[in-house]
């Protein structure tokens, strides 16, 4: 790979480095002469602040990669923050507990059931993977549905018992971390079902959920107080503080969630069949379907993941801001989409990845940090965000190439939906010739 290609492939990281450099140079100094921007405290703060957006953007990346969009994540996050705050501060069968307990029970039961079946299938098939490629289905003893169903029911019963035991008193940290994401997961599952089974366009289905989830959040919180304050130690368990503490004094807890999530899902996208299918569906849904990919399952799973991560983000929001409020995530979905797009993931699907999203999230975080350090109006921040979105997307190679070509007056071959960046070897007329050649074979 020549240096230019290397540079153009990695320019996102150079952009990140550039922002860091600007931050460091423009940063005010403490009285002792230390650079505030570069201080450990400041950088970890940035990482803490981007965690909520980052979690949501991770789920959003997967959805966008397979050619969808999830507008509901902001509202789902807000709704989750209300549920979480309510579980922490109120005892008894509050609306939050009434909705959360069944959601957790069902979600965990299904998750365990499917996981068990998945593992048994893998065990059963694992031996002959090398022998033959053809997946000859032998109905082995493991393959029955009985054991997974039993395991699922057992897990569901255990969760139900645990959650119900938490209800009379206020919920503990673990219970909240279990119930809230499960509730959000259920909302994501509704999104997925509407899109996959109902045949709704993702934009519409998730727009409806965006509005509805805000309503659910407000109803749950009660009309009078939209904001539910959480004071650990007084009206909530002291242990909840752990979610905003520094781990070993090194990294903020929310950042751990964010980093683990992004690494985990990065690995899933890279190394698993699920990841392969996500890219295949985003690349060409028809070809994927005709290649035997279970498109509906994968799409459904993506929306479920997106919901789940929005739920986790809701818990972290409560931990960070000590409150739950229904409109906590207003505009969050757009921030997440912006981060994904800056990260180079195509809104058409099929191209991009979580590494880019990670950088995109950091660029936003660093930008607002720099401007805050300079005491610049937050409205300027919004303007800058807009400029960065436009700028980075323009710089992404294929767009820039098109612009330059137009300025130079070079006619472009009709561009099919492929990344112009990687096909250096593509003969200039290949696309044209092949499309024309098919003309002949059209009906005469």
């Amino acid at each position, binding site marked *: 790979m020549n240096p230019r290609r290397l540079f153009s492939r990695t320019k996102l990281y150079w952009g990140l480095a550039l922002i860091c450099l600007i931050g460091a140079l423009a940063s005010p100094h403490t009285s002792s002469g230390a650079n505030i921007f570069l201080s450990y405290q400041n950088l970890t703060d940035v990482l803490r602040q981007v965690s909520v957006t980052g979690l949501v953007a991770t789920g959003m990346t997967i959805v966008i990669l397979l050619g969808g969009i999830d507008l509901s994540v902001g509202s789902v996050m807000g709704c989750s923050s209300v549920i979480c705050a309510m579980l922490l501060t109120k005892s008894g069968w509050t609306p939050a507990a009434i909705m959360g307990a069944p959601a957790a029970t069902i979600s965990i039961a299904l998750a365990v059931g499917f996981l068990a079946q998945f593992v048994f299938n893998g065990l059963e098939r694992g031996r002959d993977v090398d022998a033959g490629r053809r997946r000859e289905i032998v109905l082995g003893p493991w393959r029955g549905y009985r054991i997974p169903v039993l395991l699922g029911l057992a897990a569901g019963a255990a969760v139900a018992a645990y959650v119900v035991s938490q209800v009379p008193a206020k919920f503990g940290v673990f219970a909240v971390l279990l119930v809230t994401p499960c509730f959000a997961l259920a909302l994501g599952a509704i999104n997925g079902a509407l899109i996959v089974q109902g045949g709704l366009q993702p934009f519409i289905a998730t727009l409806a959920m965006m509005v509805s989830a805000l309503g659910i959040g407000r109803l749950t919180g009660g009309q009078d107080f939209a904001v539910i304050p959480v004071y650990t130690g007084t009206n909530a368990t002291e242990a909840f503080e752990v979610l905003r503490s520094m781990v070993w004094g090194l990294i903020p807890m929310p950042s751990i969630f964010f980093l683990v999530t992004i690494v985990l899902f990065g690995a899933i996208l890279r190394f698993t069949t699920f990841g392969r299918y996500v890219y*295949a569906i985003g690349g060409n849904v028809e070809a994927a379907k005709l290649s035997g990919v279970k498109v509906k399952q994968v799409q459904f799973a993506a929306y479920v993941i997106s919901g789940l991560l929005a739920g986790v983000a809701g818990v972290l929001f409560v931990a960070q801001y000590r409150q739950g409020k229904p409109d906590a995530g207003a505009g969050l979905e757009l921030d997440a989409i912006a981060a994904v797009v800056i990260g180079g993931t195509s809104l058409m699907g099929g191209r991009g990845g979580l590494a880019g999203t990670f950088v995109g999230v950091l660029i936003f975080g660093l930008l607002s940090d720099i401007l805050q350090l300079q005491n610049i109006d937050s409205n300027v921040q919004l303007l800058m965000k807009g400029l960065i979105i436009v700028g980075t997307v323009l710089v992404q190679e294929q767009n820039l190439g098109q612009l330059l070509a137009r300025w130079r007056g070079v006619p472009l071959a009709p561009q099919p939906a*492929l990344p112009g960046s990687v096909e250096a070897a593509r003969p200039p007329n290949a696309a044209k010739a092949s499309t024309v050649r098919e003309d002949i074979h059209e*009906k005469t």
Partner: protein
Amino acid sequence: MTMQADVAPMHDAGNALVGSNAAWSAGESGRSPETGSPILEVSRVSKSFGGIAALVDVDFDLRAGEVHALVGENGAGKSTLMKILAGVHVDYDGVIRLAGAQVRFAGVQDAERAGVAIIHQELDLVPELSAADNIFLGREPLIAGTIVDRRRIVRAAEALLRRLGIAIDPQSRVADLRVGEQQLVEIAKALSLDARILMMDEPTSALSTSECETLFKVVRQLAAAGVAIIFTSHRIDEVVALANRVTVLRDGRRVLTAPIEGLSSNAIISAMVGRTLVSTHREPVAVEGGPVLSVRNLALDMVGPRGWRRVLHGVSFDLRRGEILGIGGLLGSGRTEILESIFGAARGWRTGEIAIDGEPVAIGSPAEACRLGVALVTEDRKARGLLLASTVRDNMALPSVGALSRFGVRGFAREAALAEDMVERLSVRCNDVDQIVSTLSGGNQQKVVIGKWLATEPRVLLLDEPTRGIDVGAKQEIYQLVFQLAAHGLGIVTVSSEMPELLLLSDRVLVMCEGRQTAILSRAEATQEAIMRLAAPGLSERTAGAAG
């Protein structure tokens, strides 16, 4: 000149928008439809696409007031010729003279200005607009240069439709009209452009018999009024009934131009077929054992714009190991739908029984079909077969990713080995398996599609137009490959529009006509003439009885 008496009163409703100098209101244009002098002359026109000749030195002429049929097999060059005349293709060799003057259209608008209009098979109407709005789309009369004068549009459209004797409310939404009525709206649109030459590509392909009658009446009326009409059709009976003259194209060359009188439909058919394909002959493989795939009473209903429509009626056949069953028929006769129904990819309601290796199966999705060892190579490999932006390796491995994984974790090494193995076995010409698949040639892309299915070790391979859009050399390689696969015991069903290819590949040929299976011909019975006769609507009813 009797028709002119009918035509003349139509002009009463004349409007500044249309008919001011409409050639087809022949009463005042002074041109007699019977002059017989060519209004359009085409001499030695050639056109090739990327090295493949579509038209070779074609001569063609058209007289005012005549209905000229253009016939030929799929790929004979009919569309190409029409598109050249309509200004769609602008780079061609040869000369076109319009009313004696040499012309070279710069584009479709240019041709329309010169009075040449084309009605494509897929109609170019905006479904949500009214008929009147469609007729004047882009040329709306304005009040004070700003506001669309809707009343004038409706009035003008009404006048126009009345002149054509078409009973359509100009204010009705096009989506609510039948296909035949939409076709008539297209004709009205073309005439509102003062078309002297009207070309229609397969105008009757979607029409019912009564709709055809209406269309024919309008066409005859126009011809009598001096409009020259070119139309293509697969229905030979229609050609005989409607045309004054017929031109037959074969392999891009003109084979015949003659007045319709004295031409039998058989004569037209034998002029159309007779394409030959230089190729190796295949030794017939001894087929043995029970059927690997058997299909009984396969029927498919699809939702069309006007409700449910049956596109397949009771298709039944058996396919043995090592056998290649060809499916012949015209486009739209249900060939692709058979394959998609078997593969579980058809959009619609499917009935009938399918058994694989004697076991009845219910294939509801492509995923199930893959699991059962059925593979489908689609007709449109770019849109439906390949992930164009991905590598050869990823494309080859896609259907097998699940089988090569362990606990959902991809087996990268196994995927690469599979792709390399397939590239070698099918001799795909690529730099390495990491090459982006869109940079390969058509033939090699097709091999990738076939390869990705072979990697799943299927029992039944369904091929839809396996050599579409690939060059001759690559075609030969694909044929050899198909023969090899059959010799290895795969059951193969192949659909092809190219008659010689169909005959070359197939052990037996199933012929489809308008969603019905008209015959299964053995190798000995299958000739181009026999297949064409069984596939052509209108003719097949007469001969189906004879063919059994």
